[in-house]
C-alpha cells in the first residue's frame, strides 16, 4: 500500500450512533458544565451560590412563614414571611375599590380575555374565524362589563383600582399603541410633507417629555383647556396619555423594521400592481413587524410597568394600594412581603409576554 494516501472507500458507511459521552444528560453536563477547568470552577461557584441563596429563601417564603391571622400581630414571633395580609387584602390588591358584590364582572372580563386573545396569539385555532369577531368585539364587551350601563349597575372609573387598573390601562395601551405606532412609522416615511412633519413632530414631542409630566398634564391641565361640558374620564385620559407615549416609541421601533426591508420587496409588490396600502398590509408590514418583535415587546413591557405611574395623579393601582397598606398601623413592617407580591404580579405578566414573543419569533422564522 502506498504511504500517505487514503484507501478509497468502496462501500457506503452505515449510520453509527454518536458516542454516549456526547449525547443525553451525560453529554450535556460534560459539554456545558465540565468542558474545561475554568468551567468546572464556575460550575462549583454557581452551585455554592445557589445553595447559599435558595434554601434560606424557601424557608423564609414558605416553611417559616405565617399564613393565617387578621393583622400583623398574628406574626409577632415570626422568623419567616408574614402572608396574613394576603388573606385579608387580596380583593383590594386585585380590584381596588370596585364594589365587592360586583367583582364577578371583572372576573368574567378577565376570563373572556383568553378566547379573545387566542386567535391573535395562535395561528390555527378551531373556530378561529368566529373567535376573531369575538376578539374585535372584546374591547366593547369588557368596557361594558367594567363600567356597566344598559341595566348593569354603573360603576364610575374612580372605583377602579388594584391590579385590575394596571391591566385595564396596560391592555388598552398595548392594543392602541401598536396600530397608532404603525401609522406614525408609515407617516414618517410619507411623500406628503404635512403628514411627515406631523408624524415626526408627534413622535419627538411624546418621546421627549417624561411620562409623569404628561400624566400631570392630563390630570390637571387638560380639563382647564377643554370646554367644561367636555369632561373626559380620568382613566380614559390616562389611557390616552400612555398610548401616545408608547406609540411614539413603537413608531421608532417599527421604523427600524421597515428600514430592514429590501427595496426589491417594494418593487416586486409595485410591479405586480399592488397599491400602496395593499403592498404595505400584505408584503411590507408583516415582514417589518416580524423584525420589530423584540422592540415591540420591549415597548409593551415598559408600558405595562409604567401603568404604576398613575400613582402620581392619585389613582390606586396595585402599587399605590400596597404602599398605603404598608403605611397603615395594622400592617406596619410588611414592606418586603407586600412589594414582593407586587413585583411577582408584574413579573408573571411581563415574563409571559416575553416567552410568548420568543415562540412567536420562532414560528415566524420561515428560513428553516
Amino acid at each position, binding site marked *: 500500500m502506498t504511504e500517505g494516501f487514503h484507501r478509497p472507500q468502496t462501500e457506503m458507511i452505515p449510520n453509527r450512533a454518536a458516542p454516549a459521552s456526547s449525547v443525553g444528560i451525560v453529554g450535556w453536563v460534560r459539554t456545558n458544565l465540565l468542558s474545561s477547568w475554568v468551567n468546572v470552577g464556575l460550575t462549583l461557584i454557581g452551585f455554592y451560590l445557589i445553595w447559599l441563596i435558595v434554601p434560606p429563601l424557601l424557608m423564609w417564603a414558605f416553611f417559616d412563614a405565617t399564613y393565617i391571622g387578621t393583622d400583623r400581630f398574628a406574626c409577632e414571633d415570626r422568623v419567616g414571611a408574614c402572608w396574613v395580609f394576603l388573606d385579608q387584602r387580596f380583593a383590594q390588591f386585585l380590584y381596588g375599590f370596585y364594589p365587592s358584590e360586583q367583582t364577578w364582572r371583572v372576573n368574567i372580563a378577565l376570563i373572556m380575555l383568553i378566547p379573545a386573545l387566542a386567535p391573535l396569539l395562535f395561528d390555527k385555532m378551531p373556530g378561529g374565524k368566529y373567535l376573531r369577531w369575538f376578539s374585535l368585539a372584546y374591547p366593547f364587551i369588557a368596557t361594558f362589563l367594567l363600567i356597566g350601563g344598559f341595566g348593569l349597575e354603573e360603576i364610575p372609573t374612580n372605583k377602579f383600582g388594584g391590579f385590575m387598573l394596571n391591566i385595564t390601562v396596560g391592555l388598552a395601551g398595548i392594543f392602541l399603541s401598536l396600530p397608532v405606532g404603525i401609522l406614525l412609522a408609515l407617516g414618517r416615511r410619507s411623500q406628503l410633507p404635512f403628514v411627515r412633519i406631523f408624524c415626526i413632530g408627534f413622535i419627538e414631542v411624546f418621546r421627549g417629555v417624561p411620562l409623569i409630566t404628561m400624566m400631570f398634564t392630563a390630570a390637571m391641565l387638560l380639563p382647564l383647556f377643554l370646554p367644561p361640558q367636555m369632561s373626559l374620564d380620568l382613566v380614559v385620559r390616562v389611557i390616552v396619555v400612555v398610548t401616545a407615549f408608547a406609540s411614539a416609541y413603537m413608531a421608532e421601533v417599527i421604523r427600524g423594521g421597515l428600514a430592514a426591508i*429590501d427595496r*426589491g*420587496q417594494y*418593487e*416586486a409588490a*409595485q*410591479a*405586480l*400592481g*399592488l*397599491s400602496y396600502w*395593499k403592498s404595505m398590509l*400584505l*408584503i411590507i408590514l*408583516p*415582514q417589518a413587524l*416580524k423584525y420589530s418583535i423584540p422592540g415591540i415587546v420591549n415597548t409593551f413591557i415598559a408600558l405595562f410597568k409604567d401603568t404604576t405611574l398613575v400613582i402620581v395623579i392619585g389613582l390606586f393601582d396595585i402599587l399605590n394600594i400596597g404602599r398605603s397598606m404598608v403605611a397603615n398601623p395594622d400592617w406596619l413592617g410588611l414592606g418586603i412581603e407586600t412589594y414582593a407580591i407586587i413585583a411577582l404580579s408584574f413579573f408573571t405578566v411581563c415574563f409571559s409576554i416575553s416567552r410568548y414573543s420568543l415562540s412567536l419569533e420562532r414560528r*415566524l422564522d*420561515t*428560513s*428553516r
Partner: protein
Amino acid sequence: MTDTSAMTDTSEADAIIKIRGLNKWFGVLHVLRDIDLSVAPREKIVICGPSGSGKSTLIRCINRLEHHQQGSIVVDGTELSNDLKNIDSVRREVGMVFQSFNLFPHLTVLENCTLAPIWVRKIPKEEAERTAMEYLTKVKIPEQANKYPGQMSGGQQQRVAIARSLCMRPNIMLFDEPTSALDPEMIKEVLDVMVDLAESGMTMLVVTHEMGFAQQVADRVIFMDAGQIVEENTPKEFFENPKSDRTKLFLSQIL
C-alpha cells in the same frame, strides 16, 4: 399622430410598446438619451451593454418603477404618465422578473403566486390556486408549492418568480438580468423556462449577457452604451457583423 416616422414604418401601427424620444435623468445624471424603440406583439428583444449603460433603467421605465422626464412611453395603448389609473393598468399587463428574485419571504411559494391575482385581479382563491399550480408545473416545481422561498435554491426561486409574474397573465414580460445572481449549474434551468415561455409567444424584453440565449431566442438584439441605443440588429448580424466599434469592443470582452 404627429410623429412622421410612425407613418413610414408599417410595423409601427400595431406595436405593443412604443417609446419615443425618451430621456431620463437621476438628478443631474443623464441616464437615458433620446431612446426610440417599438416592440411588436410576440417579439423577443435582448438588451445588452456595459454596466451603468441604462439597461435596467430603460426596462424599469416601461412599468414605471422609474418615471421619465421627457418623451412618451405607450404600453398596449396606454400612455404612461402621472395618472395612477394608467400606471395600475399597465402594471397589470406587464410582468417583471428581477435579478435578486424578490420573492416575498414570509409567504409560501403558492401564496407568492396567488397574492396579486387575488388582491389585484380579484380572482377567487380556488381559481387563483389552480392557475398558480398550472404555472408552477410549467416552471417544473409544482412539488415545492408549500415551501418558503428561503428553503429553496436560487434557480428554484427565480423560476417561482417567473411563475408569480405569469399568474397575473401579463401580455409583456420584462427580465432584468434574471440569471446573473445564479450559480452556473442553475442558470440553465432558468433559461430553459424562459425559452419555453418565448416559444409560447410571450412578448419579452430581456436584459442579459447570456449570448447563447440571445442567439436562440431573440428577434432583435439591442446594444446600449452611455444611455443610448448604439446598435440594433438581428442576433445573427449582431454577433457576426457588429457595426459600431463600441459593440465590437463589448463583444470581445464578454464572448
